[in-house]
C-alpha cells in the first residue's frame, strides 16, 4: 500500500533522509523508530507530500502527490495544526467538505465520543488544550477513512484514556486491512500492536525487522532498538 523507494531529502548540506527505501503493507502496523533527529518526521512529511524529495513514494499505486493518493492517506502531524477560529465540529465539517465526503456526520460523532470531545463541539480551536488539539487532529486525520494512515508521534500529550482509545483505533485500522505507519520514539506505547519496524539513524534506515522474525529469535523491540542505535553511534 505504501512504497517508499530511494527517498533522499536534503536541507542545504544537511541530508535529512538518505536513500530511504521501505514498504508498509495493508493490515500492518509499521513503525519508524529512531532517536531524536534521525529523520523520522521529515520522512513522514515527504510521504504526506508536504516536502520535496528525490526518489519515489507510492500510495495505493499512485504517486504520493496525485489527487488519487491524497484521497487514500490520512496524516496526523506531530504538532496539531488547527484553525483558531473554527470550532471542533467545524474542523470535522471542513475535512468532510474538503474531501467531498458523504454521510460523515455519524462517523464524526462517534470519533468525538471516543475521544471525549463530544461535549466540546462548540469550542474554538484556540480554546482547546494541547491534548484536546491532538485528539481533534487525530479525528480529522481519520474522518476520511484513509487506506494509509501516517501518525507522527501520536501519543504525545494524550491522557491515558485517549492513549487507550488511540491504540484501539490503530488495531481496528489494521484489522480493516489498512496500512498504518507510526513514527515514534516511545517504544512502550507501540509494543502491543506493531508488525514491522524500520529503525532510522542519521537519515538512513539502518535496520528492518518483522515482529514474527524478532519473536522467533527471542528478541524484543526495546533490546533490538538499543543494540542497533548504540552500535551505529559507536
Amino acid at each position, binding site marked *: 500500500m505504501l512504497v517508499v523507494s530511494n527517498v533522499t531529502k536534503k536541507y542545504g548540506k544537511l541530508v535529512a533522509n538518505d536513500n530511504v527505501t521501505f514498504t508498509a503493507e495493508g493490515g500492518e502496523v509499521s513503525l519508524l523508530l529512531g532517536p531524536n533527529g534521525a529523520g523520522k518526521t521529515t520522512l513522514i512529511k515527504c510521504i504526506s507530500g508536504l*516536502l520535496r524529495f528525490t526518489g519515489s513514494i507510492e500510495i495505493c499505486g499512485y504517486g504520493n502527490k496525485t489527487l488519487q493518493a491524497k484521497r487514500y492517506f490520512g496524516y496526523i502531524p506531530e504538532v496539531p495544526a488547527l484553525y483558531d477560529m473554527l470550532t471542533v465540529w467545524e474542523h470535522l465539517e471542513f475535512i468532510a467538505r474538503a*474531501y467531498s465526503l458523504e454521510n460523515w456526520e455519524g462517523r464524526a460523532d462517534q470519533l468525538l465520543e471516543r475521544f471525549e470531545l463530544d461535549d466540546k463541539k462548540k469550542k474554538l480551536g484556540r480554546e482547546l488544550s494541547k491534548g484536546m488539539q491532538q485528539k481533534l487532529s487525530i479525528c480529522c486525520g481519520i474522518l476520511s477513512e484513509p487506506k494509509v494512515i501516517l501518525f507522527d508521534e501520536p501519543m504525545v500529550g494524550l491522557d491515558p484514556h485517549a492513549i487507550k482509545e488511540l491504540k484501539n483505533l490503530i488495531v481496528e485500522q489494521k484489522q480493516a486491512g489498512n496500512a498504518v505507519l507510526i513514527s515514534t520514539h516511545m517504544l512502550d506505547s507501540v509494543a502491543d500492536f506493531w508488525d514491522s519496524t524500520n529503525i532510522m539513524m542519521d537519515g538512513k534506515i539502518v535496520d528492518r525487522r518483522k515482529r514474527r522474525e524478532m519473536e522467533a529469535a527471542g528478541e524484543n523491540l526495546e533490546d533490538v532498538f538499543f543494540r542497533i542505535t548504540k552500535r551505529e553511534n559507536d
Partner: protein
Amino acid sequence: MKALSYLIFTQIKNRILSLKKKPALLIFYIIIFLFVIGSMVTLLFFGKAQESKPNADDRVLFLFICGFGLLYLYTFIVSGLSTGSSLFSMADVGLLFVAPISNKKILFYGLISTIGKTIFASIFIIYQVPNLKKSFDYSTIEVLGLFFIYIVMIVFCQIFSIGIYLFSNGNQARKNLVKTLLYGFFGVLAFSVYMIIQDRQVDILEAAKILVDSKWFGYAPVAGWSIMFFKGLLEGTVMQIAISLILFIGFSVLIISLLTAHDADYYEDVLYSTEKTFQMQKDYKEGRNLSGTVNRKIKIKDNENGIGKGKGASVFAYKHMLEMKRVSRFVFIDSATVFFAAGAAIAGHYIKEDVYGYIVLSVLVYLQFFTTVLGRLKIELIKPFIYLVPESSFKKLIAASFTSLIKPCIDGFIIFGAFALTGGASLPQCFLMALAYSSTGAVFVGLTIVYQRVLGGQPSKILQALISMILFIAIFTPSIAATVLVSIFILPDSLKFLTLLPFVIVNYICAFIIFYSCRNLLDNTEYSEGMSLPVR
C-alpha cells in the same frame, strides 16, 4: 550574583559567536556598527562646523518625543491592565526562579537585561544623528541625551506596566479607575489643544506645538517628563533635568519597592505576563494569529456552529468567511475598514489637491501591504490542510485567496467613497483610487504566492528579506512605470483623472500572471510550520 553575571556575559558571548555561522547577519551588524561609528565621528568632529539653523523649531522634536511618550504610556498601561509587562523570559522562569538565588538579585538581573535589550533596540536613534544635526544643529551631548531619555522612557514604561498590573490585578474597580485616569488624561490633552486653537486662532499642529512647549506639560507622565529633560539639556537648566530624572527614578523605585515588598514574592505577578509574552513571540515566529483573530471570548450558539457551504476546494473560501464573521459581524467590513475610512474622510475634509489624494492612497496601500500579506492565504500556507486536500493546486489557491482578493475591493470603495463624500477628490478619481486599492490588494496576494514559490524552505532570514524586497520592487515597477508614462505622454489634461487606470490594469495583469504561473504552487512548494513573513 556569580550565576547571574555568568548568564548575562555567556549569552552575549554566544550571541556574538553565533554570528560566525550567519555571515549575512554579521555583515548587516558590521554595516550598522560602521554607521553608528560614522555618526559618532560626524557628531564629534564636524558638529561645530555646521551653521546654526535659525528656522529650526525644537518644538517639532518635542512633538515626536511627546508622540512616542504617549504611545508607550498608553500601550504599557493597557498591557498592565491585562497581563502586565515582563522583564523575564520563559527560560528565566524555568531555571532562575527555582534556583537558590535571591529574588531581589533576579529582579536586578531582569532590569539589567531589559535595559541592555532596550539600548540595542534603540540604536536607530543614532542613525538620526545627521538629520538631527542638519535640522536642529544639536551637539553631541544633546543627541546622546535624546538617546538616553528614550531608553529611560521605555524601561520606565515596562516597570510602570508591572506597577499597573500589581495595582489592578483581579480588582475591577481599580482597573476602571486606571482606565478613567488614562482616558481622562488623554481627554485633558485634547481639550487643551482645542482651547489653544480657540484662544490663539492657530491650526491644530501649532496648537500641539504650543502645548508640548508649555511649562506645565513637563509634569505630564512620561511624555512630559521626557520633554522636560530634553528641554533642560537644550537650555542648560539643571533643575529641569533633575526634576525629570527624579520623577522617573522616584516612581521606578516606588514600583520596585512594591514589587519587592513581602519578601519579594513577585514571581506570580510576572509569571502570567512572561508566559503571555512567550506565547505571543512563539505565535509570531510560527506565523499563527497573523490576522483576523481577536482576543475576546467568542461564544458560539448552536445555530452558528457550522461552515454550511462549500465542497472540495471552495470550502476554504467559505471557511474564511466564517472566520471573518467571528471577527466582525459584517464579514468583509471590519474595524480596519472603519478606521481607514474615517482617516480618509478626515483627510478628504482638509485636503483638496489631487496630489494629496495620491499620497492618501499611497499611505493606505502601504498599510494594506501588511494586512494582506499577513492575511488568510498566509495562514493557510502554514497549516498542512491546504497541501493535503485532494483538489487541484490552482483551485485551492484561488479558493484560499478569495477573501483576500474581495476584501480590498470592498474596503477600497468604502474608504474612497468616504474620501469622495468629504470632498477629497472628484467622484471619477475616487472610483479609480478604489480600483487602484483593489488592484494592489490582488498584487499583494500575488506577492504572498510568489514569495512562497521562490522562498519556500529558504532558511536564511536575511536572504528572505532581501529577495522579498526585490520581488516587491519588481512586481510594482511595471504598473508605476505604465502610470507615469501614460499620464505624461498620452493623457490630455481633460482626462487626467484617468491617471491611475494603467496602474490598475497592469496590477491586475501582474496578479493574473502570478496566479497562473504559480498555479502548481501547492504541489511544488514545501510546507513549513511557522514560515517567516514576506517582509519584516
